């Protein structure tokens, strides 16, 4: 079974195996998983918005959405403990962390294939399906802290919660700025 699918099925066992074979990685090699995430984001966006792909379009959407990957790298580095990362190297620790993105990657690809539209398929199943990565991702990240960084259950849970707060907080801040959240909140209050 591939590590990405293994993490969905049995996160602790999979991360334990990956951590046991942990080896130092160069930073360029460590970018393979973040780059794949960016490609998934960019291609899914191109397909969702236009139903077609070209090199120029996918390059543009991927570069544009790389800001999300950078945000994910920063939040990961912010919550990553220094001790074990010192042993295996930050690059490998980051590489293993990005393996946890598989549930979201699969959801993005599924959503772009479903392609809801006002004249076609409804959007509700896409949001309903998002519950799967919303539930799976914290479970995988907690396993990452336990197995890769050898933290106890409580420490791993705390770091997972902090990571989720940072990630969703960043998402809400960016989204809030983009949709002009302040007048909308005033509307709700009034």
């Amino acid at each position, binding site marked *: *079974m*591939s*590590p*990405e*699918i*293994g993490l969905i099925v049995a996160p602790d*066992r*999979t991360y334990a*195996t*990956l951590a046991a074979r942990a080896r130092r990685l160069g930073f360029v090699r460590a970018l*393979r*998983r973040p780059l*794949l995430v960016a*490609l*998934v984001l960019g*291609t899914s*966006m191109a*397909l*969702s*918005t*236009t*139903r*077609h*792909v*070209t*090199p*120029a*379009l*996918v390059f*543009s*959407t991927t570069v*544009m959405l790389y800001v999300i990957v950078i945000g994910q790298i920063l939040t990961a580095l912010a919550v990553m403990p220094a001790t074990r990362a010192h042993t295996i190297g930050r690059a490998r620790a980051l*590489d293993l962390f990005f*393996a946890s993105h*598989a549930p979201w*990657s*699969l959801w993005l*690809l599924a959503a*772009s*294939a479903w*392609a*809801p*539209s*006002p*004249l076609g398929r409804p*959007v509700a199943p896409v949001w309903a399906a998002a519950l799967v990565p919303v539930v799976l991702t914290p479970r995988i990240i907690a396993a990452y802290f336990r197995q890769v960084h050898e933290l106890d259950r409580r420490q791993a849970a705390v770091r997972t919660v902090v990571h989720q707060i940072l990630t969703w907080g960043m998402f809400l801040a960016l*989204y809030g*700025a*983009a*949709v*002009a959240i302040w*007048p*909308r909140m*005033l*509307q709700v209050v*009034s």
Partner: protein
Amino acid sequence: MRLQNVRIALCGVFVIGLFIGAAGDRGMPHMPPMRDGYIVLAGDFHVHSFPGDGGLAPWDIAHEARRRRLDVFALTNHNATWSWTLTRALDWTRATSGVLMLPGVEVTSVGFHIAAIGIDRPVEWRGSVVDVAAAIHAGGGVAIAAHPTAESRKAYGAAAFRALDGIEAAHPGMLESERSRREYLEVYRAAVDAHPSIAAIGSTDFHTWAPVGLCRTYLFVRAATESGVLEAIRAGRTVACDGGGEVHGPDAFAPLVRDECRVDAAAPPIGDGFLSHLGATTAWLSLLALVIVGAEEPV
């Protein structure tokens, strides 16, 4: 080692998929028709873009607008013009599609939204519809009531309609149910009662899933320029076309574009065909396989 070869092969297939998609992406020149002495342009005046809550960058929207047989569109992010600033900074991107791109803002206020077209900086959103419309006019733009549904109905009295240049008479929201369709058309009729020359606007409110140009506006312009477009909106020489192929607008103009609306609503994008679908499917499948195969040896 064998899996590594599979990954390299999948990357290759992904790139091939993109190039197959590009081979199907042949642009065709779109000649706007003439009607009654006017050039008829097709436009979408409510489009969200990156950076903002839209899924595409302005230059990609321009390309997509051309595929969807549009001649003009406006960037209307919420109370922000970053994406217009970005486009101006990368000026070469504006010349590539042949589609006229206009600056704009969706003025997002408490209880109502107004698409402000032809202005390149945000306007004050606090105030009534009349106040916001005045601020837009002072900046040289036109003010269009955005998705004026029952929720925002309270904000639009007769004075508000008279202050506006246009109203969205066609919007993807009206495709959700017969009730919402009725609501949109009732508000449009109330607007025409108060302001007979108010422009009927069809807009997609594009973010991600509703394609650019799904609902569109036909403009009867004297010149295919930014000022020509704004003048046609101010004069009310527009017809809104909903995604179902029906026109909404003044009797003097609506019959002139009834056929265009029906054809454009049903037509696939230019270049959409076997190669385009093959490219998209190939790229999607190879990416899915790359995610499933994973980045290192099995566990």
